[in-house]
């Protein structure tokens, strides 16, 4: 059924998935749900369900990783009269974006047997935050109202409208650099992004002590040293910190913590491709293909060692390339708070350090480093590029895997 603006339909099933579908664009859009009472206000901040508070405590509303929202009408608390489904453009003011830039978007409602209704969303002008639609009680039953209208004041305007006090919606400032940094300015153009740089000369006899640590710049490539006839075990480690408590609007949502997952895509010389990641229990193997293995999953970041992927250097010649990436499995995409650091250790080579030092992205997946087989050893290149999901990253790096949704619960 196609809905027009203002149209109201009865909802005949309890389990619904509501999705804001839009063509690919540069706009970063977040969906959310506000559970409100008869006066159109939330009873508390927990009634605001979004990426940082992904599940309402009643279990009635769940914000999913792909920005879809699941609703179980049978579990909605009594005081809730209406659930407003919203979309906001992240950082719209600074980026001078609004919903008039989106064409061909639609809100889709799915039930058990497929699509229930689709509501084309169009004719926006200055809005940066829109109410896509409302699920509401009417005479003891649930209905859906195709709203499709919004505000130019972004998430703050939306929150005010639903009775959430907004103190600070600015993202926290980036942390102070811990050491003087080399230029990390981001090159936008694809042709220059992966500029090759000169690999530093291997240590000579006059200089027997290799540097202990090398921090890679974006786009910089360094080759691991082959000691003897084979490479040793390559240990790739991801560590991150838990966010500090902050006074301000998002503090209570971020306190539940960030769960970064370390993972990689691999491509073997025989053409086999795949992923090593906790999601779906693809932990890999060191002695059998893909010769890459993931250690246990650290879901808090509190384990000093973080998460680790190992590559068996003995089989280096069977591996064509490895893309190290991380994604946020739970919690907000607060990369600046996570301060992720990836280290690559290989016997005989200096420790390579890749800091995830580009902030401001709300995307959940970050490609960190690319290892490529060059003459029996690996070159390590810092990438640090953000993607909506693994599938989009896969495409950008021309990997060719088929992606489905997974869970590690």
């Amino acid at each position: 059924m196609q809905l027009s603006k203002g149209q109201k339909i009865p909802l005949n099933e309890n389990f619904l998935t509501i999705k804001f579908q839009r063509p690919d664009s540069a706009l970063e859009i977040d969906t959310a749900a506000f559970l409100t009472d008869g006066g159109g206000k939330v009873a508390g901040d927990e009634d605001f369900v979004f990426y940082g508070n992904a599940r309402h405590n009643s279990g009635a509303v769940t914000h999913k990783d792909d920005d879809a929202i699941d609703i179980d009408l049978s579990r909605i608390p009594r005081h809730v009269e209406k659930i407003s489904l919203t979309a906001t453009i992240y950082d719209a003011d600074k980026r001078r974006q609004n919903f008039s830039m989106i064409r061909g978007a639609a809100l889709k409602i799915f039930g058990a047997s497929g699509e229930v209704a689709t509501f084309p969303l169009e004719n926006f002008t200055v809005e940066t935050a829109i109410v896509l639609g409302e699920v509401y009680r009417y005479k003891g039953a649930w209905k859906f109202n195709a709203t499709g209208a919004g505000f130019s004041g972004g998430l703050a305007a939306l929150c005010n409208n639903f009775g959430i006090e907004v103190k600070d919606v600015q993202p926290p400032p980036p942390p102070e650099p811990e050491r003087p940094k080399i230029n990390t300015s981001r090159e936008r153009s694809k042709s220059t992004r992966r500029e090759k740089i000169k690999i530093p000369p291997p240590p000579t006899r006059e200089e027997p002590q290799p540097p202990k640590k090398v921090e890679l710049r974006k786009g910089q490539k360094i080759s691991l040293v082959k000691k003897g006839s084979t490479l040793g075990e390559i240990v790739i480690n991801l560590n991150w910190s838990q966010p500090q408590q902050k006074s301000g609007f998002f503090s209570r949502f971020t306190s539940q913590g960030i769960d970064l997952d370390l993972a990689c895509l691999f491509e073997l010389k025989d053409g086999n491709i795949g992923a090593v990641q906790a999601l779906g229990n693809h932990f890999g193997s060191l002695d059998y293909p893909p010769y890459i293995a993931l250690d246990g999953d650290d879901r808090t970041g509190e384990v000093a060692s973080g998460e680790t992927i190992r590559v068996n250097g003995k089989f280096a010649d069977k591996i064509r390339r490895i893309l190290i990436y991380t994604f946020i499995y739970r919690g907000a995409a607060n990369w600046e708070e996570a301060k992720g650091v990836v280290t690559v250790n290989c016997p005989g080579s200096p420790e390579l350090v890749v800091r995830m030092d580009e902030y401001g992205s709300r995307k959940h997946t970050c490609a960190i480093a690319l290892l490529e087989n060059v003459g029996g050893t690996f070159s390590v290149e810092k990438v640090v590029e953000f993607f909506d999901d693994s599938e989009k990253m896969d495409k950008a790096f021309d990997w060719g895997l088929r992606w489905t949704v997974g869970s590690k619960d």
Partner: protein
Amino acid sequence: MAISLQKGQKVDLTKGNPSLKRLLIGLGWDTNKYDGGADFDLDAAAFLLGDNGKVTSDEDFVFYNNLKHKSGAVEHMGDNLTGEGEGDDEEIKVDLSKVPPQITKIDFTVTIYDAEARRQTFGQVSNAYIRVVDDETGKELIRYDLGEDFSVETAVVVGEIYRNRGEWKFNAIGSGWKGGLAALGRDYGVNV
């Protein structure tokens, strides 16, 4: 306690209440405030109709540009441009004793001003109602909540009062129309 009506329900006004002379017709609605679009401006109007369901002259159309019927029977209390605030959004007063004899029916309508250009419909309007108040006692006699049956309509005939065997009755109509006030006016025989 006022009688709450369902769509299509007809009730007596003056029968059993012979002293009832002056009515206040209150019309109310809620619209949400959003940026990006124009304000919602809903207008109430009254059409004084003869036996054939048409106006006897253009003056029988009482609205924001013709606030008072020449007979003095129907007076529009003025246009509310935004629909803000509690209570009635617009009110129309009717003096039954002054209604000319050839007028057998008075229809009350609500239309969205400039609906087409503003891309607005009654689907975006909620909690619309009409109530009939005894203007001398202030007592609410009848209330009809329009409910949820509208989506693409831009005009609604909310209710009507009509003569029936020497008495006045009220009919909860609640019919939606596309085309706004102009189309509605033409339908009632007004030269719009």
